[in-house]
């Protein structure tokens, strides 16, 4: 092999500078599209649930999205718990979906908190509608049960459960 020349050195050095240069400019160009610091500093939302009568749903806004707080009836809870989990599109037990609904160690399964965004393409489903009387999505006809679990497609997943906690009997903090 011939001795490397000054020209070889310049060729490799220029190429390396070009690759590093392109990479270090490309990443900021891509990354600037992601949520900025003010969006990331997401506030949590406080909800007073005393106004939500049994069998009704309150919609609150959190991170720009609707969140449904549903005060379920005893019948709805009982039905939601007795569904054969394995037969569901996205298998999950009702207990699992309301496991954050506790106050001082006591379960409160009457409170269901879910993000009101259809897992198909993001529409807001309508409450107390559809064959399961849970939610019905007007966009492409997905149906959810009173546990927010998808029962009929095209939606592939259950309504998402956000992080939340009851800080007092009537006080719910989302986020």
């Amino acid at each position, binding site marked *: 092999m011939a001795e490397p020349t000054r020209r070889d050195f310049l060729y490799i050095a220029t190429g390396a500078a070009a690759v590093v240069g392109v990479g270090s400019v490309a990443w900021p160009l*891509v990354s600037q*599209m*992601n*949520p*900025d610091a003010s*969006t990331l500093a*997401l506030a949590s939302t406080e909800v007073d649930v005393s106004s939500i009568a049994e069998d009704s749903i309150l*919609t609150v*806004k959190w*991170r*720009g*999205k*609707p969140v449904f707080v549903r005060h379920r009836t005893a019948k709805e809870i009982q039905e939601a718990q007795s569904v054969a989990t394995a037969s569901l599109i996205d298998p999950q037990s009702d207990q699992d979906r309301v496991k954050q609904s506790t106050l001082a160690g006591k379960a409160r399964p009457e409170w269901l908190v879910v993000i*009101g*965004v259809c897992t*198909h*393409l*993001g*529409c*807001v*489903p309508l409450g107390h509608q559809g064959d399961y009387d849970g939610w019905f*999505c*007007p*966009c*492409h*006809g997905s149906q959810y049960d009173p546990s927010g679990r998808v029962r009929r*497609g*095209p*939606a*592939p997943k259950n309504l998402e459960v956000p992080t939340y906690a009851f800080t007092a009997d009537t006080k719910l903090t989302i986020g």
Partner: protein
Amino acid sequence: MSGPSTYVPKSALGRWFESRLPIGGLIHSSFVVYPTPKNLNYFWAFGGILSLMLVAQIITGVVLAMHYTPEATMAFSSVENIMRNVNYGWLLRYLHANGASMFFFAVYVHIFRGMFYGSYKAPREVLWILGVIIFLLMMATAFMGYVLPWGQMSFWGATVITNLFSALPGIGEPIVTWLWGGYSVDNPTLNRFFALHYLLPFMIVGVVILHVWALHVTGQNNPAGVEVKSVERDTVPFTPYATIKDAFAMVVFLILYSWFVFYVPNYLGDADNYIVANPLVTPAHIVPEWYFLPFYAILRSIPSKLGGVIAMFGSIAILAFLPWLDTSKIRSGRFRPLFQIFFFGFVIAAMGLGYLGSKPPEGAYVIAGRLLSVYYFAYFLVILPLLGLFETPRTLPATIADDVLAKGGSAILAGAAQAPSTKG
């Protein structure tokens, strides 16, 4: 097809300029002496019409941008301000909104023209693919433009369409967040869509230049689908023949466009878009603009999220492969008796899908949507590949001139060629 230009400017200043930048010769060889097949029909006028519409959209768009505010709390009212207070604002906005529809109407005629006369076949594959790229850019531009007035359909259309990407396994959710610049469609989304809506039309201009360049390398196809054999016998110069025919077609097209703008400016729009965007309430029926309906119907026909998204993008991408899927050596559908039947079946299927896309996704509509989607794909993947192997075509004319003469055009043709300035 065009040889080196023999153009010599008449004035001394023109000659001085031409020897420094020969743009006059470029225009002269591309749009004056450029040979066009004698037998072109009015379907060939839509290329010119499309260029006109692109210019119209850019002019009305730039003017609208001088009054529009791309900010979530002000966008809707700035559009209302354009409608009520800006001088002729109502006209500019109606021209722009209906212009998008007319643009798509013209592009669909243009695409069906190409599909019937086999304009995608060798040697015009690159020309065809550039056209498919223009179509994709047009769809992206119109989609983002429709978000700008920030009405209910703007917001929910943007939500549904950007969420399509969430179907991709693993990377889907991060991509959607990246597109939105947040956790839902919001101000950052509107702002970037405005920037891109301004940019993309100029990228379309760039691809249109490549498209016309490729066209002028291979020459135009024509209704007989046989190549030009003799420039003298088979072609006429672009100017005055094609120029005047295109201009006449543009005027007729503008009459239709004006009818929409002045008599039914909101007919093609959706009343829900005059309600300001509300992230907490989805309208009862989300319907995209009419020009997206066939693809929307395909999306909804597949009962799986990822499958639906693949089918929808596939239905557009498949166009790019058309030159290799059609195995027939005959270009023009005029000489393919079986192809004609399947082609018109395809046109009806595409329009039927458009109708179904506007209906709620339930019952018989879903079943019909599935059947037509199957036909849509079968046309490309089964019918065209097989037809070329089994079909017996009719006899082709030997030349374009023979084709014209066979139609009894000899007298007119001879007269026109000899005395282009006399009426006849």
